[in-house]
């Protein structure tokens, strides 16, 4: 269990083990204090969990784009948050038009489906253009080069959309069937949160089917394993990479609309930055390059963010615990990088690749 006790003594291993013990102690003491005080009711815990699961579903959908691209190119597409923003920001205009004509509330499911398709296809186009213009010419260069390019592309997309749609905030209109809550065991769960989780689940299952059960999915997996061998087998590598970017983009755009149903306000050119970083954290948490890992990482991160401040930080008497939500997310990233760099499901990926 403790590496420094079995192997030759190392201060680094010792410090890491002490840190590990302190973190576990902190979590246990904080959680114990909170739960034993009974301040927060069971219904409120369920509310927090459900909200976290919904937020996590959105992180998961975006994280899939990071993980797909990393799996196939071993690069971090830091502009992926902006691909999410492109779909979300563009579809808000369609949503407003549907709302003005009354279509949004007369045929809500069809309207939402059309919005998801529109945002998904638009984000897919942005992602494909990004790959074709910004990343493909750099394929084969040192890994730092596309990383820096991705950051530049991120700013380019932000300010392009600021130029197109302005710098003000917009909001998705309300969809009446998503308002209200359903009572499950006497606890009210907002309908919109159930919708978000179910929609994300359908998209994630669709992706899993695409990757595991179709020819193109097999080609994606082949390129991910070994590009040269895949090329020798007659697979068009460029097309598969482009397709992978497109699929990631479609999921991000769809997540944009689903997010708009869940958190309708605050739609602007900068809205992709934080979710993008969080989704990247989720992808690393789950094991970057691993599709189920990204899904699990997203859900885990969403729930930890929602519950962590009230469960652990408030229990430790830390003031302004709710303001430290982001600290929890990024602390998780640091801890994963220290204690389990391959992520939660990372081992399974390495076994498969081996």
């Amino acid at each position, binding site marked *: 269990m403790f590496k420094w006790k079995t192997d030759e003594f190392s201060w680094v291993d010792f410090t890491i083990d002490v840190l590990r013990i302190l973190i576990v102690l902190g979590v246990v003491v904080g959680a114990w204090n909170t739960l034993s005080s009974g301040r927060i*009711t069971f219904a409120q815990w369920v509310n*927090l969990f459900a909200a976290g699961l919904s937020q996590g579903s959105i992180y998961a959908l975006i994280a899939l784009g990071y993980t797909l691209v990393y799996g196939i190119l071993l690069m971090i597409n830091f502009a992926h948050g902006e691909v999410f923003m492109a779909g979300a920001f563009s579809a808000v205009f369609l949503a407003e038009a549907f709302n003005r004509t009354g279509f949004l509330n007369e045929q809500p499911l069809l309207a939402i489906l059309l919005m998801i398709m529109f945002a998904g296809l638009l984000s897919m186009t942005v992602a494909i253009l990004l790959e074709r213009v910004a990343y493909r010419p750099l394929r084969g260069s040192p890994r730092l080069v596309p990383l820096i390019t991705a950051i530049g592309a991120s700013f380019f997309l932000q300010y392009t959309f600021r130029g197109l749609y302005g710098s003000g905030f917009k909001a998705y209109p309300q969809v009446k069937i998503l308002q209200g809550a359903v009572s499950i065991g006497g606890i*009210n769960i907002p309908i919109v949160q159930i919708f978000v989780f179910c929609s994300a689940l359908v998209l994630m299952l669709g992706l899993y089917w695409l990757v595991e059960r179709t020819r193109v999915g097999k080609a994606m997996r082949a390129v991910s394993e070994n590009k040269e061998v895949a090329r020798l087998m007659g697979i068009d590598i460029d097309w598969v990479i482009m397709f992978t970017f497109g699929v990631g983009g479609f999921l991000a755009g769809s997540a944009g609309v689903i997010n708009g149903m869940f958190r*309708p*306000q605050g739609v602007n050119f900068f809205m992709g930055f934080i979710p993008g970083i969080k989704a990247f954290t989720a992808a690393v948490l789950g094991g970057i390059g691993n599709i189920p890992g990204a899904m699990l990482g997203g859900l885990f991160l969403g729930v930890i963010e*929602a519950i962590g401040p009230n469960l652990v930080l408030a229990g430790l008497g830390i003031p302004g615990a709710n303001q430290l939500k982001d600290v929890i997310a990024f602390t998780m990233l640091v801890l994963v990088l220290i204690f389990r760099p391959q992520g939660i499901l990372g081992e399974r990926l390495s076994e498969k690749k081996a």
Partner: protein
Amino acid sequence: MIRSFCSLMLAINLLAAFLLPVSAGGACDDPLGCVEVGPDDPIVVGAMLVISGAINYLGEDTLGGVELALLDRDETLLNHEIELVVEDSLCTAEGGQIAAQRLAADPTVVGAIGTNCSSAAQGAIPIISESGMVMIAPSNTSPSLTNTDIAAGGSHRPGYFRTSQNGLIEGMRLAQFAMYALEAESLATVHDGDPYTSGLARAVADTFDELDGNVVFEGAVNKGDTDMTSILTEIAVHQPDVIYVPLFEPESNFFAAQMQYIAGLEDTIILGGAASFSSSFPENTGDAAIGIYVSGPLVSGDAYEKLLEQWVDEYGSDPPSGYHAHAYDATNLLLNALEAVAEINDDGSLTIGRQAMRDAVAATEDYPGLTGRLTCREDSPFAGDCSPGTALAVFQITEAEVYDDHWPPPLAWNFAADSFD
């Protein structure tokens, strides 16, 4: 030799270029220096307003007030055209700093209207003050901006004035409203760390406490937060009667919209600040906005009605927020001071002393503005406050504001007319 001569000539030319504008026109004996306006040059007035971002409606609203005040004078003063230079101060200290630096770098700018946000003012004040200029803010309310005690968090510097009410006054009145009109026994406050929101939250909590109310929670969210579930759950533990939330959009939208799903807050009333006093707040919040109280400026009278007519003629719609009258008054204070202190030289050029400008604005007493009778104070914590603080009310949002583009909402309390007795 020739090179040395050329260098000397160049140095002389550069020196002359720097000295000439100062030496032209009348003699300047103002301790802070003078602005020289050439015979055919315009008088340059600056504005530091929020032009982009989530609350750009506030910039649009106050810019309209400034422009209408200039139009009232045919954009001319002392036979000089008035040129308005607008800088985007955003709603951040950095934005205010950059806007102020741009104006301070231009020696022809006489003074500035702005900023809109207290955070932007904190960035702008030191630069504007150092440059010798005057700034008159139409919508800052943070108490720290008029407090000269730096050790106590004050950030007032000479040259700063405002026509909007001090947050201490607003906070006191809103706490009274919560206690006596809403009959609240317990109160929670939430701010976002901005000097405006934290100043108001502090002022409301202090007064509510002084009135023997129970302040059960004082917390904050981060700017940019979209998920308010965590803080709302924490507030629900304390079950306050009223939550005072002076947040800006979109955080205020997220807060109000997500509160409806939190167990334990079903009967809690939201009292919003003037940052939510905009037609976009009910539109973006949806059903959850119905019933929410928001404080905001209330201006009335014939002169104001005339201004509204002018606004509609000029811009074709109603003002997007409630601080245009304050901006109108601020512009008039600045122009009146300019008119009073400018020395008209023989060639028609003007010499405007910077300290004289400050003194003239500071000497404003009982000026009949649209927002009341304005008198600029010098005593901390009200140094630079010119507002009588009477143009304040509480409104309650109804379905009409959410669905029918109706604005402003019905009046719930007029502090100038209603009594708590």
